[in-house]
Every structure is written in structure tokens, then in C-alpha cells.
């Protein structure tokens, strides 16, 4: 259903949600924007940047969290799961899309991650489409778009004085029961804005045949060439909304087994007790990072595992640009003998 939200009513609406939910929305903190819980007198920060630096996956898979507690008697117990209802307001479509991909990892039939699931079940996602797409994003290249609906309960389109609200799920509809229905004219205006936004985004690289090229060139000098200036800092993976790797460590003094974000860009990630390391240098590690996104996810769920959010491009300290890497990959020979 399409509804109209006047911009000067937005804060009132958010405050009304706060009675029943913890409401997270982008707010400025130091030099960046972050999804933070709304407090009295909050100020939203939509204009500073499209995407928060830390992707909203952190609200479901925190950078560090206890999985278990050790009991006095040498046993283990589950930590209580977070189930307080939440709304994330202003999540961008690329980040909401990423949540649906991570669901395929954390919510499987055989093993479901109870921490992830409890938070997902308790959280509604209200998206804000990108009527002026950001410079580093390339969502349309990877099969998504600036008004993609995946993962969202509702999506807003900025039409100047008003937002057009499209409710996408029943739960999303419940959040906006106070609003007036949009006129046909307003809905039409919104879809024009949406189409114009998508059309304004250049195609960053050719995805047709890309997976096969990456698969077939596993031993190509390409990987050394694209990883030469990489520092191995891991920023591109920590800030990526579809990266989910974690380490599990015991914090003995706290009496907890804890998981922390980890990254395949670190040497110790794959180092085995025998001293053997399947990915000993940044060459193999860069290959793993790109292949995971552009071939393994495709094999697993038939979708590219990159939503084109552009964070890795924006925050790499040496300016390595995944778009340039993949443009170069699309020039690789195909049908080389598979070794």
C-alpha cells in the first residue's frame, strides 16, 4: 500500500514507535553516521552519507558477543537471547538486501544461530531508497537497485516535502496505520524518481560470465596484480554488509565464550596448528575474498554475494577498488583448461 508521510511529521512518528520499540536510525557520531537508538531530542543524519560506516549487520551479529557462560561446575550455559522489539529506520536497500543473504547462512534447517534469529525475528526494517545514489555504490550492477525491496518491511521514497511510503509486509503496514493514502499522481511521481535514480547509476563492470572467468583463472597472475598494494588490514571485510566470518575465543576472566568478527584477509585466519596455511599470502586471501562474493555465493544461492554498497571502495586505506578489480577480471580469458 502506498502512503504519504509529511517530512515534518517524521519525528512525531518515530517518537510514537519508541513507545513499543527500540528505534535505530542513522545519527552523526564523530566523523561518521551510525545506526544508534533514538533518544529524546534526537537528530537524524541522512544527508551526511548514504550508508553508515558500520553496516547494520552489526545490530544482528555484534562485533563481539558472548555465546556461552561457563558455570561454576565446569559446565556451560546459554546466554539469554535478545528479543526486545526493534525498528531499524532508514536502512538503505543494499544493506537490507544483505540481511536476506546472511539469513541463508544463519537460519538453516539443520543449524540455526539462535542469537541471529532472535534479533531478526524481533526487528522490523524500514528502508530509505536512494533518490540520489552515492558515488561509490554500484547496486544496479550486481542485480539490485536503489529502491530494491529485498528484506524490507516498508520503503520510503523522498519526494521533497513528503516521503512516499510503500508498505511491503503486514508488520510494515502496522507501523503506518495513521497515514493518508497516496494519490495516483504521487505514486507515479515516486516511481519516476525510482527509475531515474536507477538509470543514473553507471554499470560498473560486466557480470555476464564473470563467475566462470574467476573460477577458471584460479591460478592466474591476475590475483597477484590486484592484491599488490593490499595492506591486509581487513577493513573491506569488516565493513562489508555480507561478510559474516567470526572467531570464537574464551574470555576466561569474564567466564564467557565469545565470538568476535574475523576476516579472511588476516594471515592467522586460516593458519593451522601444523603450521600449514592454505592462504599464506595476500594473493590467496584476496582471491578468497573476491571469489567468495562473486563465485561461491552464486553457487550457493544463485546471487552475487556483494550488494554493491560501496563501503570497501570508500574505506580501503590504499584505494583498492573492487569495481576496478572486477573490470579487470572481466578481461580475463575464459575456457582456459581447469586445473
Amino acid at each position, binding site marked *: 500500500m502506498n502512503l504519504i508521510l509529511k517530512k515534518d511529521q517524521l519525528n512525531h512518528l518515530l517518537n510514537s514507535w519508541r513507545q513499543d520499540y527500540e528505534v535505530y536510525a542513522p545519527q552523526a557520531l564523530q566523523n561518521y553516521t551510525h545506526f544508534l537508538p533514538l533518544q529524546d531530542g534526537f537528530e537524524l543524519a541522512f544527508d551526511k552519507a548514504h550508508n553508515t560506516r558500520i553496516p547494520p549487520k552489526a545490530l544482528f551479529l555484534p562485533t563481539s558477543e558472548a555465546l556461552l557462560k561457563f558455570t561454576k561446575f565446569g559446565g556451560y550455559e546459554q546466554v539469554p537471547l535478545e528479543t526486545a522489539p526493534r525498528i531499524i529506520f532508514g536502512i538503505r536497500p543494499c544493506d537490507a538486501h544483505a540481511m536476506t543473504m546472511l539469513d541463508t547462512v544463519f537460519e538453516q534447517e539443520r543449524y540455526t544461530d539462535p542469537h541471529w534469529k532472535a534479533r531478526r525475528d524481533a526487528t522490523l526494517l524500514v528502508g530509505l531508497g536512494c533518490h540520489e545514489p552515492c558515488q561509490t555504490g554500484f547496486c544496479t550492477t550486481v542485480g539490485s537497485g536503489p529502491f530494491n525491496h529485498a528484506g524490507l518491511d516498508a520503503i520510503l521514497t523522498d519526494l521533497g516535502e513528503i516521503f512516499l511510503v510503500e508498505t511491503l509486509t503486514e508488520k510494515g503496514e502496522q507501523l503506518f496505520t495513521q497515514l493518508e493514502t497516496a494519490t495516483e499522481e504521487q505514486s507515479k511521481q515516486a516511481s519516476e524518481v525510482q527509475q531515474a535514480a536507477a538509470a543514473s547509476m553507471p554499470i560498473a563492470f560486466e557480470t555476464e560470465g564473470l563467475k566462470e572467468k574467476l*573460477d577458471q583463472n584460479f591460478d592466474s597472475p591476475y590475483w597477484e596484480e590486484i592484491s599488490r598494494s593490499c595492506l591486509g588490514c581487513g577493513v573491506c571485510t569488516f565493513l562489508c554488509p555480507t561478510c559474516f566470518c*567470526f572467531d570464537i575465543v574464551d574470555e576466561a576472566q569474564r567466564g564467557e565464550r565469545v565470538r568476535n568478527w574475523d576476516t579472511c584477509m588476516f594471515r592467522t585466519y586460516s593458519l593451522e596448528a601444523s603450521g600449514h596455511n592454505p592462504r599464506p599470502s595476500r594473493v*590467496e586471501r584476496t582471491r578468497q575474498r573476491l571469489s567468495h562474493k562473486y563465485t561461491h555465493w552464486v553457487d550457493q544461492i544463485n546471487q552475487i554475494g556483494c550488494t554493491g554498497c560501496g563501503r570497501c571502495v570508500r574505506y580501503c586505506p590504499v584505494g583498492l577498488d573492487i569495481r576496478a578489480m572486477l573490470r579487470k577480471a572481466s578481461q580475463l580469458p575464459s575456457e582456459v583448461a581447469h586445473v
Partner: protein
Amino acid sequence: MSNEAHSPYLPIPMHVLHAYYESNDRSLKTLELSFDDPQDAREFFAAYNPGQFCLLSVIGKGESALGIASAAWEGDFVRFTIQKMGSVTTALHELKPGDPIGIRGPLGNGFPLEDWKGKNLVIIGGGCAFSTLYALTKHLHHPSNRGDYGKMTVIYGTRTSGLCMYKQDIAAWHQRDDMEVHQAIDVPEQDWLHHVGYVPDVVKEVKPSPVNSVAVVCGPPIMTKYTLPALVELGFTPETIFTSLEKRMKCGVGKCGRCNLGPKYICKDGPVFSLAELNDLPADL
């Protein structure tokens, strides 16, 4: 336990039943663990398939992946043989009978025993990776399973005779008329009556027949690397050769990403793969 969703990260409470050294240099120790709660035992054995592994947990140190070295019919305990490597395995070596311990499992797929019914089995192991093959052999020896499979040939190599595990049982296997056992050590020793040489060479010497057979290989990477082509040379097709992979692991349930190999997670989709499957995966090992 509460009716909250069972966390796949939560170990099953157990305690040490027996602990003994498996090798003369004390690098390998076997632990037999029993369940604190009989319900956990029932669930474990209902799910268990030889070739699977568990994560053994030491509070304050972490978890280590270890192959299951016992068959379900042996009793309400689970056996592991542990090579002392780093922090967790050292702590496991220090455990004594009666000590509490947590384990998660059984994890992974295990051997495709249903598909192997009616076939001859060639079981090839090296070093401490023989543990799950020992479990497999014990499983097959049970009268209710033995008739489902054809001839059994076991080839087991260790660097020295002192590193050979499960010595008593293996000595008894030599006496059985329903199986062939070939043991090997790397360099000659006095009084050694069996093969001397590396496992791939012993395989070439023994020449197991590929006719209506499957081969399963578990050993150190270098042994596996040379044994797989030796089997292909003998006429085994990639669909009839199986191996168990090892990669660093953390969660064991396909979440943490650590054991990723192409589109697979070794912990969840493996650790047992056919050579045909491996040939389709990247050489990221």
C-alpha cells in the same frame, strides 16, 4: 534444559571415562568420554554416522575438532585420539578420568555407508587420521552390519611402529578371515613383520581391485596427495574414492566461515568428499 531453541554452540556435558596414551612417544592420547545425561547419549547415537567429528571443549582454552574413533555399538561412550599440537590439545592431554568436559557433535556428514552397501571396501589410513577409519572398521565388524558389505582391505601406515594406534584390535584383525590387513612403517625396524614404505607405495604393492569397490583415504595431506592418484591408476574412478578433509574450524556448523572451500563448508558439507566432488572444488587447501 529450557525450551529455548537449542544453541548449536552449547556443548553436551560429559566426563572422562578412560584416558590413556596411544603411542610410545606420548604424542597421542585416547580419551573415552561418557554422557552426564542419558538423553544426550540417545540423541548422539541416533545421529552418529562413522566419519563424523566433534568439537571438544576446554574451558578457557577453546575447542578442537576431533574425529570420532568409536562405533556406536561399543557402548555409551565416545572415543577420540588426540595428537598434542597446541593449546587445546595440550589441555585435553592433561584430562584425567572423572574430569568434566563438553563436546559438540556429532558434526559433519560422515561416510556414505548406505551408498557403499554391497561393495568391497578398501580402507587406507595414515597417522592419527586413522581414528575415523578405526571407527568405520569397528562399525562394519558388528554382525548386523558386516553382511551388508563385501571384502574389507585395511592399509594403515605410521612413521614408526610405536605410533601405531589401537594395537590390540589391529593385531586381532590380522586373525580375521573376513578382512585383509596391511600395516606399514616408514623405515625398517627390528622384528617388524609387515610392510616398510610410504602408504601410496604400499597401495601400489597391495593392488586392491577396483571391481565393485570403494576406497576411503584418511591421512596427512602429503599421503592423501599421492594416494589418490595411485588409486586412480589402479582403476578406481573419482566417484569411488573418498577422503576426509581437514581445515581450521571454529563453529563446526557452517556459520563462522572458517573452513570454507569454494561453495562448501568442510564442517557442514564434509568432512568426507568423493574425489569427483573434490575435483570440482578450488585447490584452496
